[in-house]
């Protein structure tokens, strides 16, 4: 408030009517688009709060007559969601930390070290992105069984501790750090290891947040793999819990939508908090291919 008041009046007027009109138009276009984009969420949340009799009505009811919080209670009790939440949190956090470490190390090697086979490794890594993940399911399942990891956190976490995207992104980001810094560090006798953790990492906060957020997201939303390698509810994450609402016999939208809402919410909150860094991260990496 105070700041706007201190602006000289001329400066406010300066853009003139045309610009103001244009800005309003921009807002209108964006607002309309956002309404369309968010419509499914409206349906999800409003359904999750409708009393059971109001879910299937003709004509469609836009607003519930009262907020039926019992849907959330029923959905939560439909499956061991408390346990699922804990599992998802543990798996996603561990996996994200792991991805950050492996990506930083490999990304650093690719961007700032010279070694035999650098290009070959990089191309092979990128090549794995071109093969559909479904191909990996069966061999990986067999590997997990051989290792005796079935129905353990190992099976849920370890296969995803490295990410090609993460490595690629870190490589791009680290490449923007001036060579002079490294030269100076080398003069001071710093090894690559020291330079990475003392200089590169602190300068790369946005990159870490970007890779971290995307990795967390992928882990939180994972469905097929957790279902394949777990056998008991004690080991299962949240998205598998969502699956228990879809079956061969019928729909339960009020429970499903309530569960969808509370399982998607943590990710939204996280994104909301970190989104500023996220875009910075992508901007700085100056993506090239």
């Amino acid at each position, binding site marked *: 408030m105070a700041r706007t008041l201190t602006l000289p009046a001329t400066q406010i007027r300066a853009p003139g009517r045309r610009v103001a009109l244009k800005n309003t138009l921009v807002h209108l276009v964006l607002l309309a688009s956002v309404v369309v984009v968010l419509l499914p969420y409206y349906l999800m949340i409003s359904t999750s709060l409708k009393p059971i009799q109001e879910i299937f009505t003709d004509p469609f009811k836009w607003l519930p007559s009262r907020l039926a919080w019992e849907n959330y209670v029923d959905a939560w009790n439909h499956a061991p969601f408390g346990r699922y939440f804990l599992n998802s949190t543990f798996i996603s956090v561990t996996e994200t930390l792991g991805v950050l470490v492996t990506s930083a*190390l490999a990304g650093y090697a690719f961007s700032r070290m010279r070694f035999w086979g650098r290009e070959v490794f990089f191309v092979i890594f990128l090549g794995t992105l071109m093969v559909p993940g479904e191909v990996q399911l069966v061999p990986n399942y067999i590997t997990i069984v051989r290792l005796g990891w079935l129905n353990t956190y190992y099976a849920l976490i370890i296969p995803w501790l490295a990410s090609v995207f993460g490595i690629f992104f870190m490589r791009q980001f680290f490449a923007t750090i001036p060579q002079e810094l490294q030269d100076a560090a080398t003069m001071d006798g710093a090894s690559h290891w020291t330079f990475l953790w003392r200089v590169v990492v602190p300068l790369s906060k946005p990159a870490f947040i970007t890779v971290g957020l995307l990795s967390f997201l992928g882990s939180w939303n994972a469905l097929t793999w957790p279902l394949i390698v777990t056998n008991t509810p004690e080991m299962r994450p949240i998205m598998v819990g969502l699956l228990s609402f879809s079956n061969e016999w019928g729909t339960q939208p009020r429970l499903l939508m309530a569960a969808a809402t509370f399982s998607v919410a943590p990710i939204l909150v996280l994104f909301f908090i970190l989104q500023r860094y996220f875009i910075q991260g992508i901007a700085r990496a100056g993506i090239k291919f």
Partner: protein
Amino acid sequence: MIPRVPSRRVRRLLENLEAYAFLLPAIVVLGVFHLFPIVFAFFISLLKWNMIDPVRPYVGLANYVQALQDDKFRTALGNTTYYAFVSVGLAIPLALFFAVLLNRKLRGMSWYRTAFFIPHVTSLAAAAMVWHWLYNPDQFGLLNYLLDKVGIPPQRWLLDPLQAMPAIIAVSIWSSLGRDIVIFLAGLQSISQDYYEAAQIDGANNWQLFRHVTWPLLSPTTYFILIISMIGAFKIFALPLFLTGGGPISKTLTIVYSIYQQGFQYFRMGYASAQAYTLFAIIFLITMLQRRVLAHRVHYDI
């Protein structure tokens, strides 16, 4: 005593070793859980194997020959190509349009940006359940209800052979738009303001600014989005799985869906792997082609 300076060769060797040490964790994980299965799948693609039969005869390239002659697989190829070109072709201009709007220094822009990004962080499984409901056929679905309000007759959406794929494309754009916008925004913000000022001094209008400054200088970003979107689009699977089951009349049967069907529903692992390798070849070729045709048009020097 002066410490002996290691010879160049030894230094090179040491640096190599150090680099490999840095790479080791990633190589182990990616090697065991990503690369090995891909190699494994290649050997499987030369066998006839239903996963549980101990007998798995070697059939050479028969699975590949079968794939090329299989009407279903050809349908899947056609559908996937259609999906890839239309969805990417629509998503990129749309994302660019919104990114340019959002790049203005106006109030509330970060809110819009966040709103656009929300679908990208939502699990597709959860989102598909809502979309399936929106797309209910006849006048009972919510979309049809809205159309009815403006006097348009009800559509069959996912049940209509002609509308099913466009309906899926719409959801896929809805889901990826935020990601593309953010990447474009990042690209826009890295274009130096000097270029615009110089062009404005020359009297360029908005369109000319876009055409001669923004568009060429944004080309690395556009190129990046194009490449990753195409790779992703050819691997499309989750949406048809959750929304249509590949139907109606196989109109949304995609290549990965076909791989899933052959491998995990009919348990023809060899055949499914051969299809997967065919897909890999297609993606590889398309990526190379894009590099050939487009790479020299990309302006990296900003």
